[in-house]
């Protein structure tokens, strides 16, 4: 049975005990999927599963605490759920998880940076390619070229936590090294150029907070410290330093918690490469504490604990 059929079958069987099941449906054009809230058996037919199902549906869970819901999760998405469980932000018994072994999802901005999709007519998804029909003709793009960066180094193609798994466990097939490639490009720049880089990229930020609202681990949401006056970390002033402050705030609040799901960057209407900021911190956290967020529900995020002796921290001598 194909994955989608298994999913539909599973949802069909569990739906009665749940308020709804969150999955994906076809969006407004062939390239866009959109989250689907399955409330009735009639909604199940709308369910889709393909590499365009990019959304990390776990982002909806914290706001649904106290309600019994089902959710479809890819391997990477499941890490968000584990992290949320770890921090007590959701309850395991309230959630039914339909896990999906996943070979990777598409980064739409990678497609859009290659071809103009504004007049696109159709999309077909092959095993190793995306074929897009545009007025100028038929464009076939190798899937690997447009997969999300996280997918190219994915170590968790199968969800780490689930009640039902649609398909067989998929072993990791991607090399780990490429994960930090984009981070390393920035690290190799001269420090002044790094400043200029972020200045240029972050200046584009319109402070719409889509990055925050899309983040499954931003628990404060409506009470975000970026918008409050007590504390007042940021003002409404124009200027790139205010924007930088916001992005550092977001990244630091995620330090040791970010599962690299990439929803922040995907949600950004200005296509600012902010995932790299988090990934840099993840890299340091991994190096310092050997820790990866969202892998084990029993862990404690490394910044909420300590060791009396920290063998990996080389303190400065004076």
């Amino acid at each position: 049975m194909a994955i989608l059929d298994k999913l539909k079958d599973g949802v069909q069987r569990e739906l009665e005990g749940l308020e709804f099941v969150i999955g994906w449906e076809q969006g407004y054009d062939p390239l866009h999927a959109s989250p689907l809230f399955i409330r009735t058996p009639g909604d199940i037919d709308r369910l889709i599963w393909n590499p365009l199902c990019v959304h990390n549906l776990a982002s909806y869970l914290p706001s649904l605490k106290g309600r019994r819901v089902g959710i479809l999760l890819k391997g990477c998405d499941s890490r968000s759920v584990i992290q949320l469980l770890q921090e007590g932000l959701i309850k395991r018994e309230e959630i039914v998880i339909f896990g999906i072994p996943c070979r990777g999802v598409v980064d739409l901005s990678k497609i859009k940076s290659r071809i103009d999709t504004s007049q696109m007519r159709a999309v077909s998804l092959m095993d190793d390619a995306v074929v897009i029909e545009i007025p100028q003709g038929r464009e076939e793009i190798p899937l690997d070229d447009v997969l999300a960066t996280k997918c190219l180094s994915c170590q968790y193609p199968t969800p780490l936590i689930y009640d039902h798994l649609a398909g067989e466990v998929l072993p990791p097939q991607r090399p780990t090294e490429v994960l930090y490639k984009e981070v390393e490009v920035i690290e190799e720049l001269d420090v002044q150029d790094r400043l200029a880089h972020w200045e240029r990229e972050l200046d584009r930020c319109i402070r719409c907070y889509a990055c925050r609202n899309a983040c499954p681990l931003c628990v404060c949401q409506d009470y975000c410290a970026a918008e409050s006056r007590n504390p007042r970390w940021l003002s409404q002033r124009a200027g790139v330093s205010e924007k930088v402050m916001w992005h550092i705030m977001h990244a630091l609040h995620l330090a040791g918690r970010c599962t690299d799901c990439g929803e922040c960057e995907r949600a950004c209407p200005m296509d600012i490469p902010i995932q790299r900021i988090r990934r840099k911190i993840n890299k340091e956290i991994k190096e310092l504490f050997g820790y990866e967020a969202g892998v084990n529900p029993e862990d404690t995020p490394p910044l909420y604990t300590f060791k009396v002796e920290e063998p990996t921290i080389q303190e400065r001598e004076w």
Partner: protein
Amino acid sequence: MVSREARFLATDNIPALLRRLGNTYRVFAPVKVSDTIVLFQEFAESAGLALDEQTTLPPKELLFPQTEGLVSYRYRKDAEDLEKSEVQVEETLEAPPTIIFGVRPCDARGLTVFDAVFTDGQWRDPYYKARREATTIVTVLCTQPESTCFCTSVGGSPTGIEGSDIILTIVTGGYVAEPVTEKGETLLQDEAFTPAGDKAGEAGEAREKVSVERELELDGIAEQLLDIFGTDFWEQVTAKCISCAACTYVCPTCFCFTITDDTTGIEGSRIRTWDSCMFYLYTLEASGHNPRPTKTERYRNRIGHKFSYHPTSYEGMFGCSGCGRCIKVCPASLDIRQVLREAKAHG
């Protein structure tokens, strides 16, 4: 409208034109700043123009900045008597002559929503008004709708002229330029514009060929939205919304703002910034009570405002120009057209 005497603007002449205009005006034009982002930026020849794509943000930022200082102030203490202090207030309005080149008809039409609220009605906003008056909008008419376009559903047109000062129609080798206003007429005096000749006819034909399917039937939507105000329709339709402000910030007609006094020490400024009805804080009251506590109420207000309350207050004018950006940027691909369709069908 002034006489629509058509002129021809050769593509090759555009850089020189903008450079010349740059002596008198601030000139903004669409520039590709990254692979996927096109923004209005101050014209620089090296940057190149991106006239064939919809800009990521509408030009409203140039007339209604995301952040603008309204006044700056400084407390001055009397050195002899510290009890006495006076406040020096300085208005910080800047409205230099500006040209925005390469605007789309939907975005130009979006400005008419601003005009209705900020300049034409009971209240006048001097900041917007001054900028609007100092700005000339040069619009390039559309040739091909995008999959998210729905201007015709809300009363616009890919070849519409509302809000524009000049319209440009793409023809072989360049554009046919036609003035819409006096301001536009003035601009056409530049040597870059040559008589249109038979290009005018080509332009007319080109315009005829463009069409955007009118996919929504919005008659009666204002009343319908009121009718379904209290139903569970809104909770269902907003389930996928993540309550960010991307849709409002890219919208050419959203004009909500907030004002804060930003004081450090004895000086500061009163600044106005865009606000978004999708934010919790937008309606949070000092008591802690929030009349729109969840995204459901907030999104309902956004749709209600654009398609019911605004047309009711402003002679049927929707608070939407059908540019489709909100659909494009929505992290959850929530499609406003679909919401309207379902709203009409609900109940």
